[in-house]
């Protein structure tokens, strides 16, 4: 059974003449325990797919199934929330500004029916590499990387099997990004999580994922494994264009002389 299956997914905003389709006829399937990337430029609809799965957008058609269960509209049951969690792009916007880390985590744990809250909070914080000293801090007392760790801890609280990652490192410095990416790979290895990650950075997707779907203006143009991408053998010209742009920007890294511009 696949962790996530999507068939003929169309997501739109607005109605009547204002209707704009953000995603058209997307299909993908992610086996349990896999790490799947969704890449594309801004406005390609990659985050929209994630939000439709999460139940944050009610206007979609087609089929979304999580662990074999088909989803309807924006209604999600408790079982879904225990199985699927999400980490957002901007850790400055995804934590409640007036709640301490402790309050945030205890509320989530309580919602999921856990009663050994104190012990669990300590464990969650240590799982994401934060000490006890962080427990009673407010978000404004944390750095960007620390905030994202708290957001990951919150997502891990219900012990989910699937994590939806919406550009989890794009708001962070490179060195902090490395720490968070390492944390995410460790967590996946330890807990056998399934990842669906959205990113515009092919390097990040290449690091964390095995398979990736390339999106452009609402459509998935190609699904390829990262190895194929690394060998620069995509089938679709758009993927090639994206690869070239991304590698072109990184040429300086290898110390090779920059080609004449």
């Amino acid at each position: 059974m696949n962790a996530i299956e999507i068939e003929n997914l169309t997501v739109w905003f607005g109605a009547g003449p204002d209707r704009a389709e953000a995603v058209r006829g997307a299909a993908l399937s992610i086996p349990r325990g896999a790490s799947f990337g969704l890449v594309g430029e801004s406005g390609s609809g990659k985050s929209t797919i994630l939000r439709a799965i999460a139940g944050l957008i009610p206007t979609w058609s087609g089929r979304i199934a999580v662990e074999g269960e088909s989803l309807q509209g924006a209604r999600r049951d408790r079982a879904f929330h225990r199985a699927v969690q999400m980490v957002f792009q901007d850790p400055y916007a995804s934590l409640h500004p007036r709640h301490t880390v402790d309050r945030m985590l205890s509320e989530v744990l309580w919602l999921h029916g856990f009663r050994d809250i104190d012990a669990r909070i300590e464990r969650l914080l240590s799982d994401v590499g934060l000490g006890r000293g962080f427990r009673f801090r407010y978000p404004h007392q944390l750095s960007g990387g620390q905030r994202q760790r708290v957001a990951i801890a919150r997502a891990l609280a219900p012990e989910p099997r699937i994590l939806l990652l919406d550009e989890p490192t794009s708001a962070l410095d490179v060195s902090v990004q490395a720490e968070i990416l390492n944390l995410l790979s460790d967590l996946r290895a330890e807990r056998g999580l399934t990842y669906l990650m959205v990113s515009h950075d092919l390097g990040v997707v290449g690091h964390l994922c095995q398979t990736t779907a390339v999106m452009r203006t609402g459509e998935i143009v190609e699904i390829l494994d990262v190895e194929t991408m690394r060998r620069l053998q995509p089938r679709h010209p758009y993927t090639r264009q994206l690869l070239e742009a991304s590698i072109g920007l990184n040429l300086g890294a290898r110390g090779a002389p920059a080609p004449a511009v």
Partner: protein
Amino acid sequence: MSGATRPGLRAWLLAEEPTSRAQARAAAWYQGWLKLRANTLAMIGLAILILLTVCAILAPWLATHDPFAQDLAQRLKPPGWEGHIFGTDSLGRDIYSRLLHGARISLYIVLLVALVAPALGLLIGTVAGYAGGWIDVLLMRLTDIFLAFPRLILALAFVAALGAGIENAVLAISLTAWPPYARIARAETLTIRNSDFIHAIRLQGAGPARIVTRHVWPLCVSSLVIRVTLDMAGIILTAAGLGFLGLGAQPPSPEWGAMISEGRKYLLDHWWVATIPGIAIFTVSLAFNLLGDGLRDVFDPKESAR
């Protein structure tokens, strides 16, 4: 001794790593207090209000005369006349003593309105903003209807229907004061409800009631508190206005507005009868405005992380 404990308490409040819920909360309040303290004008406002509260509480002891005792022989005496600090009114009552007792009534009105109106506004505004759809339309049109009337006229209508008296005045003022709060609360809710931290808690399975009360309210409250302190002056004035028109506190109750109303007949020859309660209203209104401005800085969302 206190010199030794103060730095300890201060360090505890400013600790980088609070070790308990209580400490974290206390520290947050303390930070706000530090910010407020840096604002001289706000502190002046706060000092006036504390003074007013103390005066109201201690009125029976601070007053030099019985506020209701009439002495027609001593009527309309100027300030400083034989132990009457602010003079006497048309019935020979001591204005200073009446002012002190009147502070109790004014504070009572202000506090009741300040509790009822924003609470009503917060509830209606956040529900409308979060629910959206027809609930939003219904509640907001209701708000518009209330907003369409001039405030004092609407309050007059309510008092006329309910009967004169302080409690009814409070009710009338609250019923006319909530729509702006509902507007503010709704506007804030609209921006808050699309933020990632609300999405995140929705994804944890939290229902609308919990999200509104625990996640939206704490963020709306700060702007409402600011607005309320800025409106306090208006509330006092509306209460005074009702009193002035004879629809608020009833004579011989020493409500400030009623006192001005009585004094107006003698304004030209005996200016102090109306002017002194007027100055009292002015000072308190100013104090609330100053405090409100200071609170705006404290609650500024652009809290520096440093």
